[in-house]
């Protein structure tokens, strides 16, 4: 994930603690984000969303939850003042209704999101492991044994695909070797 990305992740009924933890864990598996601090900001209770995020350092990845509960007025205010959050990395974790309200009431924020809207699908991790491993072998022309050897010797590049490969082989212990 690049710095200062804004994106929306849609959850079926607002992210549960488990779903948030799962998403954060995925981020941690990426070399670009594994060391970046994460803050979960509950956007709604006292409508201080802007003031809370504004002073945060730019390397913080902000998970903004419950934006679907913000009032129309506050969402418009957020849209007008969006430049105050330039440079921040924000993942809006919301419901489908929250996404619709963002699109409708925050057209300028939405323009910055630029189509980066994703649905959280817990079953997406439950892949056909063997099929995935085969596609990795075919693409990189390497066997599982060769990948493990490279990882052991520390010559494996930190491309996300290899991180995934080792994880699928159950050799996450070699990550960072």
């Amino acid at each position, binding site marked *: 994930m*690049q*710095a*200062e990305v*804004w994106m929306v992740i849609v959850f079926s009924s607002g992210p549960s603690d488990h779903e948030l933890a799962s998403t954060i864990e995925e981020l941690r598996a990426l070399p*670009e984000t594994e060391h970046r601090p994460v803050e979960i900001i509950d956007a709604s209770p006292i409508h201080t969303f802007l003031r809370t995020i504004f002073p945060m350092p730019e390397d913080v990845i902000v998970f903004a939850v419950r934006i679907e509960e913000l009032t129309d*007025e506050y969402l*418009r*205010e957020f*849209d*007008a*003042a*969006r*430049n*105050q959050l*330039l440079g921040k990395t924000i993942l809006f974790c919301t419901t489908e209704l929250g*996404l*619709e*309200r963002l*699109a*409708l009431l925050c*057209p*300028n924020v*939405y*323009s*910055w*999101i*630029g*189509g*980066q*809207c994703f649905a959280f699908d817990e079953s997406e991790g439950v892949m056909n492991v063997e099929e995935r491993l085969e596609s990795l072998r075919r*693409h990189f022309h390497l066997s599982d044994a060769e990948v493990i050897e*490279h990882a052991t010797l520390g*010559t*494996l*590049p*930190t*491309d996300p*695909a290899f991180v995934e490969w080792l994880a699928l082989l159950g050799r996450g212990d070699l990550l960072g070797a």
Partner: protein
Amino acid sequence: MGDNLQDRRSVFREYMRRMNPKADPGLALHEGLYVPSPLSTSAQIATRLELEPASTHLMIGATGSGKSTELFAIRGRLGKVGDVTALFQDVAAVQQLAQLKEGSLVGLAWRLIWADVTQRYQSIASGFSDATFATNIANGFWNDEEWPDDGDRFDWVPGLITPPQRNEDLERLIGYLKTLLSQVPTQYVLLLDGLDRMRDVAKLTSVLLYDLFTLVELGVGSVVVGPPELRGDAYREFNERFATFHFHGATDPNNDDAQTFLNRVLELRAVGELLPASSRNALVGWSGGILRDLIALAKNAGDNAYGSAHQAISESDVNDAADRFGRSLLVGISDSAATRLTSLSGFGITRYFAFTVASADDLDLLLRRLVIEVMEVPPKFFIHPTVRPLLRGLRKAV
């Protein structure tokens, strides 16, 4: 192999950094990524301001069409004129738009001009004894109410005539500003961004009419980015108060100049061979001529290419990005707006259609860029290219 993959990630990282739809426009200019728009908005305004610094100019346009970038381009151009100083401010960053009132922009003018004077003309600044009073009026201050008001011995009984209310603080601030401006060897132009996000257009026009023309009388010019609602006939008289009025919107991607412009924007930002010409052309086509959409699509296509382990961004990466982008544009569309949109798509192979904003749905379609306007004579309208292929499904749903 290891070095190649490391290089690949570095190349993609740099590409993604450059293809940032949220990037500070000032930074883009600074890094040499600015390409003059064929609409020539900044060139026209800057030329007029060189000749008439104390003039006001209004710019409107679709979200993401590059209005802020044009303001920075104006600043760059006026920076080469010796006796004109252009100062940029995103008003929404320092002023709650819902609380904007008469005098707010005069207060902002004081703050910007005083900051410049203290930086560049220290001898003038050090001799200006009223600065603290002026700054307090602009920013607010804590009042020490140690001495209670004794109150008058007489009660005022209002007459039949109610005189206009005077804003004495504002009048004093105008006086301080006038004195300061008479001492500095430059003329100021304010570049005011962010007012396009103000929804109470009636209040905005009232504030602009007072504040901007008060500043003109003080010799301060301005360029204001206003909301798209000002395009309506109801605001024609208001728009005519400005020296110039510009619609800085989409460039027509069917037009050769626009295609050259949009391609050049991508060429400057692309890294190495990552974005071949065929993919660039595809992005230009999908963008509908909206600058930020072009960059966002290019970024999303980069995402696709990297995730698919492609060495370069292919047309299929671009098409997948366009599909996702179009779907995001349709999020939250009302049934009535969807009906209106699908009715417009019935023009078959004809891309442009006649369109008049006759309802809230029509305005919504324009504000959300589902319908794109190219300001020509007569104006041309077309459906955002990324949305068009999705309309069949929308028609069925509606």
